């Protein structure tokens, strides 16, 4: 019973959806103010989701059943991620060995779900979007993992989130150190791509391939994909805070840190044009991997 409550209500699915949709509102509002617009009211994203739930589900001719299953795959895995992260923050030391690895795997699943769904939708633009998403996943996972390994090294080789938190509580946040700061910068750029935000909103590029991966989705499945975006906007900053910035996790500090990371992400999103997929791959595998490696070496040296 308790596990079900954790997963579905708090700190799992329902809680993180609410926070995620509010984070989406922060994104829209800050973006609007940056662009001299007014922006929507705080409940806009909730209304959008409810509206989508009432719309017809169009199943394209020639599509496979995975077209409908893919979004659920993504949202369920993210529910699990938010449960694990939330429990670790509320009850440190309650995790299990290797939960960091589980979280890393589960956080890749939404992108894979998007690739599966798009490939199953029998639309040429969606397949272009899927191929872009696939290249992007391959590109950003390398530096992202390197930055996570940096943190693992700094925390004495532990792959348990609870230990990483405990290490930071006793020795100070990882972000304060050289290697931690470098890994944080790398991770936040990778997260920009994980979220599908500019400059890496390549797989959805509405001006080029008309929402790409999402082009055939409507009604409930589209709403689920919007929820996935919202959940990502909640879980990824929380994941960053857990790994890099967890010296003090009292509620007020946690909210402040969450909003700070959110605003950084939104600012990057609004001050960059979309790059091409080849430029993105070159950036992640070239410059960013190099920077991540430098961070890793610094971590080995103990800096």
């Amino acid at each position, binding site marked *: 019973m308790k596990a079900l409550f954790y997963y579905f209500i708090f700190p799992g699915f329902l809680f993180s959806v609410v926070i995620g949709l509010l984070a989406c509102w922060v994104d829209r509002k800050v973006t609007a103010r940056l662009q*001299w617009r007014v922006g929507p009211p705080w409940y806009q994203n909730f209304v959008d989701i409810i509206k989508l739930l009432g719309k017809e589900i169009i199943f394209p001719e020639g599509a496979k059943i995975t077209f409908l299953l893919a979004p659920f795959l993504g949202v369920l895995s993210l529910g699990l991620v938010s449960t694990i992260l939330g429990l670790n923050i509320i009850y440190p030391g309650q995790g299990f060995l290797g939960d960091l690895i589980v979280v890393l795997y589960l956080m890749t699943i939404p992108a894979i779900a998007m690739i599966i769904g798009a490939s199953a939708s029998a639309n040429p633009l969606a397949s272009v979007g899927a*191929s872009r998403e696939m290249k992007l996943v391959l590109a950003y996972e390398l530096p992202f993992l390197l930055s996570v390994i940096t943190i693992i090294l700094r925390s004495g080789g532990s792959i348990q989130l609870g230990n990483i938190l405990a290490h930071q509580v006793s020795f100070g946040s990882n972000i304060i150190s050289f290697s931690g700061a470098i890994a944080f910068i790398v991770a936040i750029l990778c997260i920009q791509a994980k979220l599908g935000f*500019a400059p890496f909103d390549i797989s959805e*590029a509405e*001006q080029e391939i008309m929402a790409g991966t999402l082009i055939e989705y409507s009604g409930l499945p589209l709403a689920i994909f919007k929820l996935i975006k919202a959940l990502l906007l909640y879980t990824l900053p929380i994941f960053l805070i857990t790994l890099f910035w967890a010296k003090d996790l009292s509620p007020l500090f946690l909210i402040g840190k969450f909003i700070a990371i959110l605003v950084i992400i939104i600012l990057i999103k609004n001050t960059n*044009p979309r*790059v*091409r*997929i080849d*430029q993105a791959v070159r950036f992640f595998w070239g410059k960013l991997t190099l920077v991540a490696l430098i961070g890793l070496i610094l971590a080995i040296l103990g800096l």
Partner: protein
Amino acid sequence: MSHKVVVPIGPYHPLQEEPEYFRLYVEGEKVVDIDIVIGYLHRGIEKLSESKHFDQVAFLVERICGICSNSHPIAYCQAMEDLAGIQVPEKALYIRTIIAELERIHSHLLWLGLAGHFIGYNTVWMWAWKYREPVLDMFEMISGNRNHYAMMKIGGVRRDILDEDIPALKKTLDDLVPIVAMFKGAVMDDPVIQSRLKGVGILTKQQAIDWCVVGPTARASGLNMDLRRDDPYAAYDMVNWKVIVQEEGDIFAKTVVRILELGESISIIRQCLDKMPKGEFDANVKQIPAGVGIGRIEAPRGECFHYVKSDGTNRPIRHKIRAPSYMNVASNKVGAVGGTISDAAITLAAVDPCYCCTERTAVIEKSSDRKILNGFDLIKLSQDKTEALKERMGHGTIK
């Protein structure tokens, strides 16, 4: 060609604000061929023109394009003046120059915003369009309209620029200078924008000549041509300015040409406001003889050409129009092929194809079928708004 994947851009697509159809044949991300289909917007303007009398045609051709809505009337009026041998008063020439350059500013800012949007940089889009508003306000102050200014008339202009309006116009222009400088920095020095636009969609000088491109598209490919200098009309030979030419021929060069032209346009308008003589602004043309005339001008997108033939009655018997986008759109065949889909999106838009927006609205109460707002109410609303605007900017009423 049959087994290649086709990525359609159009006829209705988020990229294009107008119905145009580009069929991209792709292999993976690479564009290997492109079909350009235009003609969705054909409205038979040339034929319509033959059923209007000469004064009405000026209003008709204004409706060809919603963005360069001054270019066609000015070219038409020059064609008529060429036909009838009319001397246009000097003040009218200056007013024509001011209107044409204001239009260039708002058109280039509009393109800059759209270009930002097309490469996924929505902040540039919103900012460019925000700063385009003062230009439209200036239009409203001068003519009472934001677009479709109805300023051109055979033998002159319809409205004077009042002396008491000039300080407010100059002030708004001065406010635009730092904005242009800001865009110059934000767009031309941004490394990510450079990586997206440099070396993309290249149209070499020879290709530009072969495809007969005009306007900023040609000037970005190193073709030093500008009708304002090469065949001076209005007051362009009475003010100092220079033609902006870039050699690279890529999208970045096209952007640079347009941004730098903003500065030149502001300088031209300032000089015109200073030098504008007093006196008549209309030659009061009563009769159009039989004959033919041509008028060509440098519209924001390139050379706009009008040919009018008259048989001595009050209507043209032939009116031929060539808009600049007609030449520029075809050059996409060179620019877009060989790039990726991402590049094609911005390449197709970089020639600044123009669209029109000439719809009317009526708000109808559903229960009683009663019109709440009809055309006259809307005109009244818009006139009230203009009065409020003029009051805010600080000067007299429209005469």
